[in-house]
């Protein structure tokens, strides 16, 4: 297979088709469409793993695919812009109340955020998404990841605006597309509760009432989508072909994630066990993070999106672009970041090394998969460090805001904070 692909005209474009974003590319959708037109189930082949709604969506817009992908990216940027703007307003209002109530220690004044500094953040977020090379790459390659990002961005926007119905619908749509956004349910619920001033308290009936309401809206719209898919194709094929494909990871084509090499090397009889471990890993962080960050649901959303894009079974560079767009929103954490320099250098170097090692492995045949996987591993470690660094910085700032900036031990010496 590799030999036939050598140096076709689109050689330079081809490597990132295969390597960065092999999952969910448009030409796969085209294949599905062709099968559908022939009256065969689009899942009959082994290539197409998109949801039925996507295939019907492209049934109408396939001729304008380029424009659709560009629009999706623009939509994501606008949604993020509005969401962050609104969120910043909320943050600023809260800060004002806290200041008026004199809840902050005196030496924390330098941690207070100013409107001047916050003014450009929404614009920076939108630009960070649009100008990110990963976004551009993903858009040029026509990856459906751009559409998923748009859905998630709309979900965030609706949540921040406090529209629980729309939030539930978009969350359901995102879940329907790729399962993993399921973990965003918790932060969305927390945020909506916070907005309605309902405390997270097991004994309060208002808490249970709203939770049930939101859950029903979410499950209801999810149900509608799944049933709609069934009526469109009049078969349940898509369940195993879309969700089974995501969960059981049968396709081990190299990508920037952690799954492919691991499962390519593994003995067959351990496979089920480790797939469970790997998949539970993605969902597991929701519980501790929700407990720790229950006061800060938007930061929790950021953490969850990042975790999904690192640990999901077929990650693409488009996923990374989405969570990286949020980094300017946490600019004020900059002083507490510990190894941002190291991490950004590693991320940059890895992004440059991906195509080089891919070239050496597939085209030149002189390196092998271990070289490439080493870089994948490093890239993901750097991402994990980046996310945990931001997590630490966020918690630390909150800690300082309640306990004062210059911490003293009991004996009067300077104290350092440790994340536990």
């Amino acid at each position, binding site marked *: 297979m590799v030999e036939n692909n050598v140096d076709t005209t689109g050689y330079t474009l081809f490597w990132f088709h295969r390597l960065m974003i092999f999952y969910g590319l448009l030409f796969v959708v085209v294949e599905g469409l062709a099968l559908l037109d022939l009256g065969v189930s689009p899942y009959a082949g082994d290539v197409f793993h998109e949801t039925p709604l996507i295939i019907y969506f492209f049934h109408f817009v396939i001729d304008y695919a380029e424009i659709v992908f560009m629009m999706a990216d623009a939509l994501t940027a606008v949604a993020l812009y509005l969401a962050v703007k609104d969120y910043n307003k909320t943050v600023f209002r809260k800060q004002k109340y806290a200041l008026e109530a004199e809840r902050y220690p005196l030496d924390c004044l330098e941690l207070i955020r100013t409107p001047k500094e916050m003014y450009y953040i929404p614009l920076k977020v939108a630009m960070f998404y649009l100008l990110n090379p990963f976004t551009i790459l993903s858009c040029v390659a026509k990856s459906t990841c751009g559409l998923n990002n748009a859905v998630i961005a709309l979900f965030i926007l609706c949540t921040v605006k406090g529209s629980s119905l729309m939030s539930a619908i978009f969350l359901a749509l995102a879940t329907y597309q790729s399962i993993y956004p399921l973990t965003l349910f918790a932060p969305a619920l927390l945020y909506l509760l916070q907005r309605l001033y309902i405390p997270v308290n097991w004994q309060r009936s208002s808490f249970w009432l709203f939770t049930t309401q939101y859950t029903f809206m979410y499950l209801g719209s999810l149900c509608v989508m799944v049933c709609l898919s069934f009526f469109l194709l009049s078969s349940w094929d898509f369940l195993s072909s879309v969700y089974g494909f995501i969960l059981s990871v049968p396709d081990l084509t190299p990508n920037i994630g952690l799954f492919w090499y691991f499962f390519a090397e593994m003995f067959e009889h351990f496979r089920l066990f480790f797939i469970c471990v790997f998949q539970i890993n993605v969902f597991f962080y929701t519980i501790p993070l929700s407990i720790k960050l229950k006061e800060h649901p938007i930061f929790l959303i950021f953490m969850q999106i990042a975790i999904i894009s690192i640990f999901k079974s077929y990650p693409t560079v488009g996923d990374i672009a989405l969570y990286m767009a949020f980094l300017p929103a946490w600019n004020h954490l900059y002083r507490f970041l510990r190894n941002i320099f190291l991490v950004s250098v590693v991320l940059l*170097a890895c992004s440059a090394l991906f195509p080089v090692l891919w*070239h050496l492995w597939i085209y030149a045949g002189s390196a092998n998969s271990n070289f490439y996987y080493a870089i994948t591993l490093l890239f993901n470690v750097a991402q994990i460090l980046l996310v945990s660094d931001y997590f630490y910085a966020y918690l630390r700032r909150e800690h300082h805001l309640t306990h004062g900036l210059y911490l003293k031990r009991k004996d009067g010496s300077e104290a350092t904070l440790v994340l536990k």
Partner: protein
Amino acid sequence: YYPPLRPVRSRWLALASYSVMCYLAGVAWFMGLAFEPFTLRTYMSENAMGSTMVEERFPAGERALATGREFAAHKKKVGGMPVDWLVKTMQSRGLEVFTQSFTRKLPFPDENKERYMVRGTNVYGILRAPRAPRTEALVLSAPCSEGNNNNQAVGLLLGLAQYFRSQIHWAKDIIFLVNEHDLIGMQAWLEGYHHTNTTGGDWSPLQGRGGSIQAALSLELSSDVITSLDLVLEGLNGQLPNLDLANLFYAFCQKIGVLCTIQGKLQRNDWDTTSGYSHAAQTMMLMVLKQASGRPWGDHGLFLRYHIEAASIRGINSFRQYKTDTTTIGRLLEGMYRKLNNLLERLHQSYFFYLMPSLSRFVSIGYYMPAFGLLAVILLLRALDLWVQLGASPPGTEDGVAGGVQVSYGPSSPGVLSILTPVVISHMTGVALYTLPILSQEMAVQHFPVSETEAVVLTAIAIYTAGLALPHNTHRLLQGEGTEEGWRVLKLVALLYLAVLLGCTALINFSLGFILALSLVPIAAFITPHTPKALSAAIMVLLSPGCTLLYCVFVFQELQETPVSLQDGWMLFLSVISQGILDHALYGSLVYPLLALLIYPCWLLLWNILFWK
């Protein structure tokens, strides 16, 4: 509690001494690679080629020479490739014969080989494997060259074809290829064989094919007897064939008793003497320079792109007493093909990344990479130092507060624009250097009394030199915004950029990466706007990529024991530039775009720092 940062001066000194030490250690490590006790002896890794016995019986050297003479006569009569004669001869030897015609218009005339509009024909015959399904193939090629060159090679090729036809143990198709116009013909044939078209050539499709090609040898032989055989490994973009192919060649030379060389240098046993060491070092340096050039150094060079292990074997006739006749060379080739025929899978057991200080010794990637790593680490140290200076909390420090350093938001706050301007302008210059020479040749020819080739080369040099004036113009755009922090950020960007760039280059082509690192790392490490301007500017120009190329030309000539005068060296330098551009246009060599689009802009960034106001 963390101690305050050390005083600037002593920190600068410490860093400078670390940098110098790393640099010297890197160079010393590299030079040490040629020292025999530090190298490994080559050994055959591939089982299928190692233990099996082959008896070589090729008898017909004299007849092959006669065929060669006949070929020469026909070549002379036709004034080019005697296609009809070759087809007839190959058919009479029982091969399936096909031809492929191709035309190619070069972007500008090639003055070295005197060609512009190239039109030619490849002739190849396939010997079908009698013993196995025809899914794999081997290639033996000989170029049809101008003048009296390589007639013996074609003769031997035809002789071997006849002899191989009578044998029954072939499990792979053997393709005998006579290609015209050396690499251009080879490129056309390979692209036709693999259904690709990367460089926009125009060729007719192939009518017959064998299986997927496993290995290829290209034969160059211009005399009836030879004194030694030279092995050429360096291919396109510095790619090398699997080391087992070289091992195979060496093993058969030992067995049959043929003198063999690499880089035209015989092997010596006196490694413990100075002259012995310098001989090995010269051999290795020649390999490094050839690999760094990214050119295919023989007709085999283009096979490597298609994941086919290939090498050129070149017969050399010098004044030495001991001569080898064509029958022996035929036996050698027979043995090699018999062993390659035994392969069960592609050659992959041995190394792909290596340097050879002699034919029986090699240095693998694990040994030579530290030399590059020591140079690259200087860049990273410098970047780290700048980062600390820029006032961020030092990485690894637990407490962002205790340092007492006030950080504005992000290190890029001193105006992203003031950094972006030089970066963008430098890259625009790079793009101009890449595109303009070929685009503007017609205009240049109309206005100046130069040939097309000269026009291309001189335009390239002119744009390269014009880039030196950039800092002044950049500042006009900026209206004197340059701050102390500004150049630090720019330098940080340049250092990281250079480190990533050189790292990637060294992975694909170690020699190129290392040579560039040798010249660029010192200036990247020490350049600031506060160093004495005239002196630093002179050093920077002397260490710029263009001048590095000039030195490489002289060193290469010196190592090949054909030293040139300054005048000739300059002419050679000009022709090397035109060859580089041609290699890129014809075969897709990446060295010219790499230098023009990435390395040169990176150097311009450093140049901008020197003239930061």
